[in-house]
C-alpha cells in the first residue's frame, strides 16, 4: 500500500513525531511504500539540523534524516509553516536576507500543495498530531 504521512507536532514536546517515525519504519518493514512525509504546524521543527539532544536520548531529527537516506524518503517541510517558525534552506535564507540556514539532511521545503498531492496520490493519508 502507498502511504502518505503527515506530522503536525514538533519533536520532544509531543510524541507525534516519534509515533510517525515508528509507524513509517514498521510500514517499510512490511513492504509498504511511503509516498511522502509532510511536516506541518510545529511539525516543521523536526527538520532543523541544529538540535543537540542529550547523548543518552533519541535524536529525532537525525533519525528522520537517516531513515530518509536509507529508504529514499521524501521529507517535506511546509514553507509557510517553516517561515513562521524559522526553518530555512539555503535558497530561502538567501531570498529573505537571513545569515544562516538550518534544514537537516534529507528534508526539503515546499508548499502545501505537496500535502494535497500526497492525499491524492496515496492509498491512505495518515495524520499524526494532537
Amino acid at each position: 500500500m502507498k502511504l502518505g504521512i503527515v506530522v503536525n507536532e514538533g519533536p520532544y514536546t509531543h510524541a507525534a513525531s516519534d509515533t510517525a517515525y515508528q509507524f513509517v519504519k514498521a510500514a517499510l518493514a512490511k513492504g509498504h511504500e511511503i509516498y511522502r512525509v509532510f511536516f506541518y504546524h510545529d511539525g516543521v521543527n523536526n527538520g532543523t539540523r541544529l538540535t543537540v539532544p542529550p547523548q543518552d536520548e533519541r535524536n529525532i531529527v537525525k533519525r528522520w534524516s537517516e531513515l530518509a537516506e536509507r529508504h529514499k524518503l521524501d521529507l517535506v517541510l511546509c514553507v509557510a509553516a517553516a517561515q513562521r517558525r524559522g526553518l530555512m534552506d539555503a535558497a530561502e535564507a538567501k531570498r529573505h536576507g537571513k545569515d544562516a540556514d538550518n534544514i537537516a539532511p534529507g528534508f526539503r521545503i515546499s508548499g502545501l500543495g505537496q500535502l494535497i498531492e500526497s492525499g491524492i496520490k496515496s492509498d491512505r493519508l495518515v495524520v499524526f498530531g494532537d
Partner: protein
Amino acid sequence: MTEPSEGGAIKKFLYVNRKAPYGTIYALESLEVVLIGAAFEQDVSLAFVGDGVYQLARGQDTKALEVKNFSPTYRALEDYDVTKLYVDRDSLEERGLAEEDLVVPVEVVGAERMAEIMDAHDVVLTF
C-alpha cells in the same frame, strides 16, 4: 475515489476542525490548507466538531489578542467552490451556540450522520 478526470481521480477531502480559532494556530493553518487545496479541484468538505465550532462564530473580535481575525475568510470559501460545511449539533449546543450564530450557511448534523460523512470521504485531515 469518486469519478475519474483527466490527470487522475477526484478524491473526497474532508477537513475536520476540532480546535478553537485562537489559542493555537491549528484553525488558521487548517484554513490555509483548504485554500491551497482548492486549486487541486478535488471534492472538498469541512467538518466542525468540539471547540472547532467556535471558528465559525459571529462577532469575533481579536484586537486585544493582537492576532488576525480570520473568520471573514470562511465567507470567502464559497468563491473557492467549498460549500459543504458540516457542524456537529451537540458541539454547538454544548457551547450555547445555534446555527444563526455562525458566519456562513452550514448543515448541522448529529453524531451518527457525522460519522457517515467521515466514512464517505477518501482523505480525512484532522486539525
